[in-house]
């Protein structure tokens, strides 16, 4: 027999889901206040994803903003029976990848993007001391390809097939990038000064 608190928690979660569906329905009908409420609910999660994928605070903010603009644009085609947060996550990943593609076209190569990686979680580091900050910083210092695979597969639990599909790479490449990312991450966590010296 479930305990009273469990029933109340379940009920609260059910109400949250119902409230989100109501907000989504209103936003589909054109309500910007409803969409702002959805933004307030999800922005910190989406921004964290963008920050981890880009490793750059200003770029992450641009991508977060773009993700919500795209979400508004495509909301009428959103399947209301699926989870809004999951749908938004996919849109944010696309926003990051489109931003990276535009940047590559401008700068010429992925190595150039890699050199641009800076401000490694600077804001986050101030409020998150210790191992977690080290881990975030080490992730941000990875080469873009390895970092994106690590974030999607290692942090957010996507399968290699899903991540490869999102990134537009082969599954084998995805696995190789994850292996590379983990090796680099392990080395950098053991000797954090090594990569810090590079900046």
């Amino acid at each position: 027999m479930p305990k009273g608190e469990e029933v109340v928690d379940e009920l609260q979660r059910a109400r949250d889901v119902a409230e989100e569906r109501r907000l989504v329905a209103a936003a589909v009908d054109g309500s910007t206040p409803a969409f702002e409420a959805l933004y307030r609910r999800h922005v910190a999660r989406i921004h964290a994803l963008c920050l981890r994928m880009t490793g750059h605070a200003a770029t992450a903010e641009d991508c977060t903003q773009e993700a919500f603009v795209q979400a508004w644009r495509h909301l009428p085609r959103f399947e209301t029976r699926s989870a809004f947060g999951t749908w938004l996550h996919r849109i944010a990943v696309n926003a990051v990848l489109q931003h990276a593609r535009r940047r590559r076209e401008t700068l010429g190569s992925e190595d150039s993007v890699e050199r641009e990686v800076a401000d490694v979680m600077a804001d986050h580091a101030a409020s998150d001391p210790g191992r977690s900050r080290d881990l975030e910083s080490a992730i941000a210092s990875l080469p873009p390809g390895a970092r994106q695979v690590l974030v999607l597969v290692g942090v957010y639990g996507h399968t290699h097939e899903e991540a490869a599909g999102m990134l537009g790479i082969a599954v084998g490449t995805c696995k190789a990038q994850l292996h590379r990312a983990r090796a680099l991450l392990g080395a950098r966590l053991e000797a954090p000064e090594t990569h810090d010296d590079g900046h």
Partner: protein
Amino acid sequence: MTDTEGREDDGRLDAELRGLSRTTIEPGRDLWPGIAAQLEPRGGQGALRRRPAWLWQAAAAVLLVAGSSLLTATLLDNERGDGTMAAATRVAPAPAGTSGAMAMPAAFGPGAKLDPEYLAARRLLTTVLETRMANLPSSTRAKLEVNLAEMRRAAEQINAALAEQPGDPLLEELLLKTYQDELAVLANVNQLTNALAGTADGKADSERMQL
């Protein structure tokens, strides 16, 4: 480093990475003004005007449900306020139709379903309450069953409308409202039966004497 130590390190790193997914990070500034400036307006009013007449019948059904919920909540409040002890002593066996009255259709038309979390909460509450309905006074239980049956009829009407127009956001909202009302009533019953159980436990001996 041995192989075992290496695997332990790998496992720890995997766990730390997965843990990051639960950590949120606010942006350094409010991005909403920049987003709001780029939102193209959508024709919500036009969509409302295109809705057929049966939609408003469904809306009326929800109003009926809301009134029904209020009545049930009032009844339950009255039980809490003046009859806790008396209610505990007027225990009657649950009628055969209890679970049927509490079972509502859990679908948005033929091609859609409620969120799993929502269904899980309903299942949880329904399971809890089916075992506790017997503790309610017979008059309260009868009224509760009538009101739950009313909600069920409203949900069926809305589901029928959704079958004609799958994915209609207003209809889905109406149906969700009906389910929310149902959950609110079931939660009220849960609280009341918890209170009755607490009272009954504390005064079991004296109640046995009265029975």
